[in-house]
């Protein structure tokens, strides 16, 4: 884990190579191409449907598309579901992965390396690939069409266990010993020493996890049946199913509605997001 480099990502003091003009142009051109689809969605969402493919700077602005979308599908409920889902998953992941990461970092377990490898296998065998069997299991457990059912397969995240184990390992034993002298038990040591010192990792992992589960689609699609448990992505997928002879402007508005919270959060906390992705990704 080379977390220090993450901090460097935005350090302004570094001397940078100045780009030749041609490359500056290329960089900007690429940036414009990359952001264009989103800008286009904005354009479409705020103008009457007739202007979808006809650009007119003075086309009338309207919020009708948003009201249409809002009225045609229970987006409020979808928001609540996604919110419950994401907070539930992240909270449960924190607990389960902290315990497991702590065990791997500090406890002598027979066959620990093999156990750890077994955990890491989940990095490759993820719930989506096993939709058929996982669906059967969720069904047997009575979890179909529940938010718990969407989240539970992701709670024991190998990735989270791995990250926390790595972080815990970097924490000096002396701190732990000092706490023990003060009479702390293992749980107290974990909560008072390890968890606080791993805060950056939690933040990083939390942000990555939030954006992953906010955007997740296939498993929620399979395991939800009704409005009461459907998250935003599935709601949006159903709303814009091409079969319904979609009104593009409305779909654009619905699309923006579903990405808005995460997008706004991203724009506000861009630095944290980028650093989190870095921190979580680099080993």
């Amino acid at each position: 884990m080379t977390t220090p480099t993450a901090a460097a990502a935005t350090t302004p003091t570094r001397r940078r190579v100045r780009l030749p003009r041609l490359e500056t142009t290329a960089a900007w051109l690429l940036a414009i191409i990359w952001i264009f689809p989103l800008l286009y969605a904005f354009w479409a969402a705020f103008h009457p449907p007739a202007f979808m493919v006809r650009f007119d700077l003075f086309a009338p602005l309207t919020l009708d598309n948003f009201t249409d979308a809002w009225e045609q599908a229970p987006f409020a409920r979808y928001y609540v579901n996604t919110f419950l889902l994401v907070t539930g998953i992240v909270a449960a992941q924190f607990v389960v992965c902290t315990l497991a990461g702590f065990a791997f970092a500090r406890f002598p377990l027979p066959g620990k390396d093999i156990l750890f490898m077994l955990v890491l296998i989940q990095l490759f065998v993820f719930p989506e690939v096993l939709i058929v069997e996982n669906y059967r299991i969720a069904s047997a457990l009575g979890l179909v069409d529940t938010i718990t059912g969407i989240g539970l397969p992701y709670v024991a995240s190998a990735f989270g266990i791995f990250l926390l184990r790595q972080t815990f390992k970097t924490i000096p034993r002396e701190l732990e010993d000092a706490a023990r002298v003060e009479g702390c038990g293992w749980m107290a040591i974990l909560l008072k020493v390890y968890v606080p010192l791993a805060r950056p990792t939690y933040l990083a992992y939390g942000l990555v996890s939030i954006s992953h589960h906010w955007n997740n689609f296939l498993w929620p699609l399979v395991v939800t049946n009704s409005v009461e448990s459907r998250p935003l992505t599935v709601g949006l997928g159903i709303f814009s199913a091409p079969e319904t002879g979609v009104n593009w402007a409305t779909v654009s508005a619905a699309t923006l509605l579903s990405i808005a919270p995460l997008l706004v959060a991203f724009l506000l906390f861009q630095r944290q997001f980028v650093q989190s992705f870095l921190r979580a990704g680099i080993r």
Partner: protein
Amino acid sequence: MNARLPLKTSGLAVAGLLAAGSPSAQAQTELTMYYPVAVGGALTEVIDGLVADFEAEHPDIAVDAIYAGNYDDTRVRAMSAVEAGDAPQLSVMFSIDLYELIDQDVIVPFDDLIETDEEREWLDGFYPALMENGRLDGQTYGIPFQRSTIVFYWNKDAFAAAGLDPDTPPETWEEMAEMAAAVREASGGEQWGVMVPSTGYPYWMFQAFAFQNGHRLMSDDGTEVYFDDPAAIEALEYWVSLAAEHDAMPSGTIEWGTLRQNFIEQSTAMMWHSTGNLTAVRGEAGFDFGVAMLPMNTQPGSPTGGGNFYLFKGASEDEQRAAMTFIRWMTAPERAATWSMETGYMGVSPAAYETEALRDYVEAFPPAAVARDQLEHATAELATYQGGRVRRVLDNAVQAALTGQMSPEEALAQAQAEADAALRRYARSR
């Protein structure tokens, strides 16, 4: 610490339990139904409105109507609810899901619940053509609700611009190809002549072509298909020729979902589409348009399409009675009339067209009666055992031919072989 895990997740579980629709403590009977929307417009609002009206009239029954996407999605959702032990009491599903629903042993025939003469009369009151897909072995499993046929939409302004009589739609395949080519030419390549959708439900459109060529694609008992018949091949060849020879239709596949938009934007002068789009087209078209029956080759006609009400197994007697009450209410002439006017789907019984509202509507807007008139020439929609896979292989064949990957003959021969294999695999495990 371990004890915290269940606590953490129980917050989610509560939301989940709510979602599961716990049985009510009150005397009210609660019903859950899934329903699809396959064509344009804000149909979910219309359904919600109808449900609210019903609940106001029947305070002892509460209906939770869940919009589940298109027909395929709805089948997946309903089946998954059944598997999870949370079967709905009723649902609107694809009329052709009949065989698979019976196969999975999840529905009951309406005949089991029919007691009075009045109810018998209600059951016999629908258009017979709409009952075809809902009956098996003398039992009725599906009650027509959002039913359609494919109809022909044309842009009168575009016809006029091309020097055609704006009020005369093509009656034969030949005429359609000629008129479409004429429009294309007159517009200087700006406008396509005709579009027939080939995603979403390609098998349905193909079935129309085949039927107009005098051919039915499946046996009455749903165990055999006849895709590679010369009449079927000829039908597909005609469809392909619209793009390949007449240059009247774009090559490649044509998207079901965006086709209405294409018609509205006048990028095509004619389209084949579900009558369920009628009201949306009427609301959005900025030009004069007409609706007619599909053109014919040896005979006119279209398959029926759309969704039926089904009753699910496992409901209590009270729930079944309540479900019957609801279905009868929803399919009563006045509602069928409202539903037809709001959407373009047809009124499912002759009585619906005799209501004052729908009579006046049809008089003022004759296209609203086209789907009904076409029923006389209608055939059942493609339905077999293993329907999902069988339809998919036919869809693939149609797309392969339209995109020039295979000749119609090759494509249909392959589809026949694949459908046979699927039906064999099924017959084995039966």
